[in-house]
């Protein structure tokens, strides 16, 4: 297999066969030339698209694509009674779904192994992040979801659906979650005569005086430090950023680094794997994540400003 990058159809068949039969050799040959089968350099992530407001039936939603990996996240708000321990805080519930459409490996009826793990990681990253903010910098966060202290608060249900699973699921899921939160529009509500919360519809808002909106100014959540993540694959001495599903299955050592926009390390996640991560590798992964963070921040800001123009 000398011609690893043939152009005519006959040798292309052979490349395909080589790829299926000796996947590790196939990838190592590419790595020798510092390039990957899809034409990326080692440290480069795939093209990323964020589009906000993809689901009209939700209060906030976002569709993100990293290469082929597609995530659809949507937030629905419901009014709930806050707990006694924290009367002026709302609540956020996060769930991650992998319906069988996303990958040939997922079987119907049996949930995917990866789904609960990603869901747990997501709630750890997002909720701890919020809790941490609130404790340390005095920034309101779960408190922003409060409506009437001790009586009513928002319960935010974040559901993320993976529509196409092609590697780096956590990165795409976290990005879609963050984007959905930044798109979240909190509806205006008011108290009615029986002291219950009712929605104020947009058109007759100014009509009745006694139904003063409870949350006139709190229409958006404040997200001060936003977490972004990058998954890398370690193989021998190579570090491959943003692996595809094929790369993940062949080279098994994954490292996920989550940094927030103030450059704090939120999570460094390496669940086993045959390659040991030494300090230098860790530092390289962190450096790659720093770069990626800037890219993602730019993409997210562009998506938000695009939406505001509309």
């Amino acid at each position: 297999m000398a011609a690893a990058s043939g152009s005519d159809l006959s040798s292309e068949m052979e490349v395909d066969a080589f790829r299926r039969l000796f996947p590790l050799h196939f990838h190592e040959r590419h790595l020798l030339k510092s390039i990957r089968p899809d034409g990326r350099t080692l440290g480069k992530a795939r093209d990323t698209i964020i589009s906000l407001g993809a689901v009209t039936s939700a209060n906030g939603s976002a569709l993100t694509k990293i290469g082929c990996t597609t995530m659809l996240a949507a937030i629905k708000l419901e009014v709930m009674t806050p707990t006694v321990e924290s009367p002026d805080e709302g609540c956020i519930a996060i769930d991650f779904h992998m319906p069988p459409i996303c990958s040939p490996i997922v079987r119907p009826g049996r949930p995917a192994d990866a789904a609960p793990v990603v869901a747990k990681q997501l709630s750890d990253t997002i909720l701890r992040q919020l809790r941490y903010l609130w404790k340390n910098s005095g920034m309101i966060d779960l408190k922003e979801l409060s409506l009437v202290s001790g009586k009513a608060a928002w319960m935010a249900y974040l559901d993320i659906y993976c529509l196409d699973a092609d590697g780096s699921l956590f990165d795409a899921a976290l990005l879609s979650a963050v984007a959905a939160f930044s798109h979240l529009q909190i509806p205006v509500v008011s108290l009615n005569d029986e002291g219950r919360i009712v929605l104020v519809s947009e058109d007759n808002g100014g009509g009745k005086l006694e139904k003063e909106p409870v949350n006139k100014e709190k229409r958006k959540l404040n997200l001060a430090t936003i977490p972004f993540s990058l998954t890398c694959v370690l193989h021998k001495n190579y570090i491959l950023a943003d692996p595809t599903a094929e790369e993940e299955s062949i080279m098994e050592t994954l490292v996920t680094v989550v940094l927030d926009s103030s450059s704090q390390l939120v999570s460094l996640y390496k669940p086993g794997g045959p390659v040991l991560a030494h300090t230098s590798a860790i530092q390289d992964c962190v450096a790659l994540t720093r770069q990626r963070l800037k890219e993602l921040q730019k993409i997210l800001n562009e998506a938000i400003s695009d939406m505001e123009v509309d």
Partner: protein
Amino acid sequence: MEIDRGDGRKPNQLRPVACSRGILNRAHGSASWSQGETKVLAAVYGPKAGTKKNENPEKACFEVIWKPKTGQIGKPEKECEMILKRTLQSICLLNVHPNTTTSIIIQVVNDDGGLLPCAINVACAALVDAGIPLKHLAVAICCSLAKNGRVLLDPNKSEEQNMKGFVYLAFPNSIQSVLPEGSLQVGGEPVEHGIITSVTHGAMSVDDYLLCLQRGRAACEKLSVFIRSSLK
């Protein structure tokens, strides 16, 4: 040094560690591990013939079943299962028994912080007891970062909750090799400094993480001596 921990330990002091092997006579291998009030049992059955679907039949396959102290298995337990499975897969010689499945059952007896590291340690001990071929052992520890930036090793549950963040780390144990010194180094670092598993909770700066790494390594060296002596 000033003592600022609830139970009067020094920052680098671990809780009393105990390990015993071969406690269950029906299992192929078993072990118990306790660290302070945290106690975990592990049983190993296998290798049994055949692998599950979606697993590579050319290699040995592992199956981890996590039994919590009470109640049903939830998302956190699923995550622990996955981490433990991947960690054990990385320390075993998978080519010796291809197309087999080894089951590891972890029973939590009491959780007082640092559960995952204890589970990794006990699973290793049980694998050794069952005679499963291993490359090396995995030695795991929990390092936590106090609000004042101090690193405290092996926190218990009440400490874990008051920390800025904590890290579960697993390293390979130090290999007593016949090869000349320095031949097992990767980029100027000995093999036992490579991280097998790292799971963090809470935010910290990168430097703090590296500090945790350093302390964790030092502690794991001592722990690995203890494991070696208790497995003999």
